[in-house]
């Protein structure tokens, strides 16, 4: 299918959905409004709210806070995941000892940690960063661990026969392999960094997109809730596009067929 045709079909889905939303909320059918305005708002109200936010400039602060939290969560979680992943993969004993605890920690629904982080780190950005870190860390950790473990034995033997010492093996074999696994999960880990930030904000904060949605919800301002969701969705799409660009640059050596989208 051509690019233009695909794009027009994609746009059509949005147009039809919004039109349907508009009709069902504003035009009574047999005297009954199918979607009451109070619960569903209307596309126009939501659009007006978004425009207002951007015109008044209030949204920028919230966007900035969420972006900052997500970025910090991603960086800290990734660095931690890479270090621990490498350590565990190279020290099987350590990995074996910690295995049940890692599984336990990962099985824990992260939302229940949010109150604890709020208690420990306050209502500022760091409790949200901490929540994001617990999500990002495990994704990166498992991928790096796998990446180091799954280096082909032939490639490893070849590297040894080519005269590489332990440090050079690390740099030329284990590191690139671990990175390729980490980059292939980039969409997931970046997405989870944003989830951690927004959920944290939603559960208690003074700024951010999650806070914005939570505030609107508190006063039954449905238009505000939907507007927040739309801005959040756009924000995630933009970040995902950036990740795709970064990924394309970093994984040029990979065959297209082997690309994983998680």
């Amino acid at each position: 299918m051509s690019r233009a045709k695909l794009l027009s079909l994609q746009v059509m889905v949005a147009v039809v959905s919004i039109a349907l939303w508009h009709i069902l909320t504003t035009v009574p059918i047999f005297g009954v409004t199918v979607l009451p305005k109070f619960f569903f708002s209307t596309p126009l109200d939501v659009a007006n709210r978004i425009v207002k936010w951007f015109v008044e400039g209030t949204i920028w602060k919230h966007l900035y806070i969420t972006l900052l939290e997500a970025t910090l969560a991603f960086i800290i979680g990734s660095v931690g995941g890479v270090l621990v992943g490498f350590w565990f993969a190279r020290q099987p004993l350590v990995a074996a000892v910690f295995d049940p605890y890692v599984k336990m920690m990962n099985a824990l629904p992260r939302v229940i940690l949010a109150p604890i982080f709020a208690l420990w780190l306050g209502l500022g950005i760091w409790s949200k960063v901490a929540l994001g870190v617990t999500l990002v860390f495990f994704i990166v950790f498992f991928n790096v661990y796998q990446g180091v473990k799954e280096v082909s034995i032939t490639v490893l033997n070849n590297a040894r026969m080519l005269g590489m010492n332990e440090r050079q093996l690390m740099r030329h074999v284990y590191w690139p392999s671990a990175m390729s696994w980490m980059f292939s999960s980039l969409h997931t880990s970046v997405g989870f960094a944003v989830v951690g930030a927004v959920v944290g904000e939603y559960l208690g904060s003074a700024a951010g997109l999650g806070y914005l949605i939570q505030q609107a919800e508190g006063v039954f301002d449905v238009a505000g809730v939907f507007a927040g969701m739309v801005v959040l969705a756009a924000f995630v799409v933009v970040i995902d596009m950036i990740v795709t660009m970064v990924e394309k640059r970093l994984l040029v050596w990979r065959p297209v067929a082997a690309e994983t989208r998680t």
Partner: protein
Amino acid sequence: MHQSASAVTDAIALREVTIAFQLAEGAVYTAVEGASLSVADGEFVAIVGPTGCGKSTLLNVTAGLLSPTAGSASIFGSPLSGLNQGAGYLFQQEALFPWKTALENVAIGLEVAGAPTGEARELASQWLARVGLGGFGPRYPHMLSGGQRKRVGLAQVLIRDPKILLMDEPFGPLDAQTRQIMGNLLLDLWSADRKAVLFITHDLEEAIALSDRVVIMSAGPAARIIGDWRVPLARPRDIAEIKLDHAFHEIHREIWEMLKDEVLKGYAQTGGG
């Protein structure tokens, strides 16, 4: 123990090498038993044997990737311990670094040895040209065909100028035409400085066409070396043409007489199991 003067200068000398693996439940599987083999400097020796006879295992001992259970390996007269640093190893499976370009793959052996990057890359691009891949430097392995990857592998190994070349069915996965082309390329490169070569293959024709000596291994387990033929064919050779030579047929028939039984034994074991 008696040691002749020539044994000391042999590039590779394996003496009574036995390789056994510990299996689960305490059982022991003997892959190779009492194998003695020497390769003189500048000699091209092929080991031929049925599938699963432990040829690759024997090669890994020579490379120092595996320690023999009994017996010893000497390289140019000194006992081998640890990796055989002076040897180049061309693997059967994919061994290139997928995250490095062809050029980087070839240059890496020099770079890890401490050569400046620019110098190593310069030499690497010369080697790529020598294996017929000039201009393919910026490609990643997945953008190359199987034969092209083997060429990169060959350049990767030869750029380090190893004294010994170990090859484990390197052209096994390639199609017949590409194998012939690769064989000729190998002979061409080899004739420039005549390294000692130990070449593993299950293809008797390939073995005869390439080498000075053909060594036959019996079917495993406990595979032994059961035959050692000198190939009386003149060099330089062309792989495709030499197969039409009368002398080639003579020696092929002679060796095949012996190998045939072992191949059938090998099939019986793997097929029955």
